């Protein structure tokens, strides 16, 4: 009796699942070859469709060389850098809800993340460690590319774009460093921007442009905030788009395809 009931429940659930997945709404959302589509079969054609009929096609070709798939070859470092960027965007948006870039509020807001925001501390930690991890992974990605000689023709330009991406990553990290507005942030940015002051001829001007004042101040905080949450992400996304496009066109993982 119980068995029959269970069987019928499973049958009903399956029926419902089929009807949902076969509905017009799902049909319209999923392009042919999607693994979520009703009646998906693991065929070579569908394997191609999964990539080709999808936004993924911007990132991946349908087929890749077998040796390029080996984890030991690429270490996934470029992909992980991108993934960390996405994670940082998500956690960063979360943090933006609770943060005010003013001299009086900044530090208090960061403190409040630990005391009065659900998961505030965890998200802040993820954002901070994730940022360090991203600097590291971008750096390691560059080294991996160098050791494989993957910057050689026709991929020279993508290497240049990659160096720009590394610089932007450093700038993103550096501009975010100031935002907690504690002693660590304040003095690290002071030391860092002092280096910019050593630019020959126009050092003072460069430093002023960076800090929006002679030394780190409330104006600097606002400037770094805007740079950190809008300007640098905007620029880096553009460069990433070019970078990924060129990876697809010039050949990415394991050489031109």
């Amino acid at each position, binding site marked *: 009796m119980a068995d029959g009931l269970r069987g019928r429940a499973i049958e009903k659930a399956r029926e419902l699942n089929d009807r949902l997945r076969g509905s017009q709404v799902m049909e319209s959302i999923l392009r042919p070859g999607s693994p979520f589509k009703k009646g998906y079969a693991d065929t070579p054609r569908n*394997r191609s469709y*999964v*990539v080709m009929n999808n936004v*993924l096609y911007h990132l*991946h*070709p*349908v*087929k*890749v*060389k*077998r*040796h390029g*798939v080996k*984890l030991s070859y690429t270490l*996934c470092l470029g*992909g*992980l850098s991108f993934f960390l960027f996405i*994670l940082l965007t998500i956690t960063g948006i979360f943090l933006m809800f609770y943060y005010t870039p003013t001299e009086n509020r900044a*530090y208090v807001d*960061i*403190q409040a993340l*630990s005391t009065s925001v659900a998961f505030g*501390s*965890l998200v802040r*930690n*993820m954002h901070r460690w*994730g940022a*360090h*991890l991203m600097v590291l992974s971008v750096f390691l990605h*560059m080294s991996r590319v160098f*050791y*494989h*000689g993957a910057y*050689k*023709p026709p991929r*020279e330009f993508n*290497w*240049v774009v990659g160096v720009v991406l590394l*610089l932007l990553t450093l700038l993103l*990290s*550096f501009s975010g460093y100031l935002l*907690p*507005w*504690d*002693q*660590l942030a*304040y*003095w*690290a940015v002071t*030391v*860092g921007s*002092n*280096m*910019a002051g*050593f*630019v*020959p001829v126009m*050092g003072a001007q460069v430093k002023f442009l960076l800090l929006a004042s002679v030394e780190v101040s409330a104006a600097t905080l606002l400037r770094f905030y805007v740079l950190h949450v809008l300007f640098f992400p905007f620029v880096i996304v553009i460069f990433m788009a070019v970078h990924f496009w060129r990876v697809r066109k010039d050949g990415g*993982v394991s*050489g031109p395809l």
Partner: protein
Amino acid sequence: MTEIPESLLRRSAEAKAKALGIPVEQVLAEMRGEVPTAPAASPPVQDVSREVPAAEQPEPVVSRESEVASSEPEPEESRKAEAGSAEPEVEAEQEAPTAAVATAVMEPEVAPAPPSGNGSGNGKQAAVVSPRPVAPPTGLPEGVRTQRLLTVVKARAIQQVKAEPTDKVNTWPHLMIAELTALMAVTALLLVMSAVLQAPLLDPANPNATPNPSKAPWYFLGLQELLSYFDPQIAGVTVPTLVGMIGFMAVPFVDRNPSTRPSDRKFAIMLYTFFMAGAATLTIFGVLFRGRGFNFAYPWQDGIFFDDIKDWVFFEE
């Protein structure tokens, strides 16, 4: 049937007319099917001449020679006969030495004769289409060539595939499964890290209280280390901008060695490793071995002066 462009039709008709020695208009008309195509008028004889093969050759390749010679049109018969002969060329030479090469005489008025039994001897004679000029055909106008060499084709494919076949696998699932695994691993790592290790938050910023030492973020600490050795104009600006930015961007244009094999690029690898090891050493030195006043310090004796990890290691206190 697909539509053949007028120009192509015209060109082929001209060629055919030239070969057969008849007016172009006539050929064109036949091609368009306006005039009932006599079997004699079908394909340019000399072009097909080599592969007169026999059974699967539907169109008659008929020598007009028989008609010219005997003035007795038997096209249908000759075709039959030809279809029966396995090796028309050889037979042509052997059995019909006099019956020679197809000529370019056109006889459109030839009506399809009723199929009649044999006449094989005559047919073979008629079917002669020899690739080699056997004997000067009788009754041929001077200068009419009945065959020609179109081209010599080497025995290989017209399309040459230059790319070597490579061993490829589908991105889905082979690459993407690995990627998804990596993503999840990193997410897990980051979550655990964030749950265990607290990000630092020192006292509120105070411009009047300079901490000792003051350190830059760790990725700039190598530079700060350099700054403590050299003139800031050199270490602070020249080294990072020239070496760091322009130097790195110029790498693919300076390194012209096309090989990607490690054994071929020992110098490049050595140079890169040297720079990276140097940067790493400087950074580690700046992070761990610099204490108060940015003076040398042993981390195990004097403690770690690196506040990024202040909340997760406690050598002091």
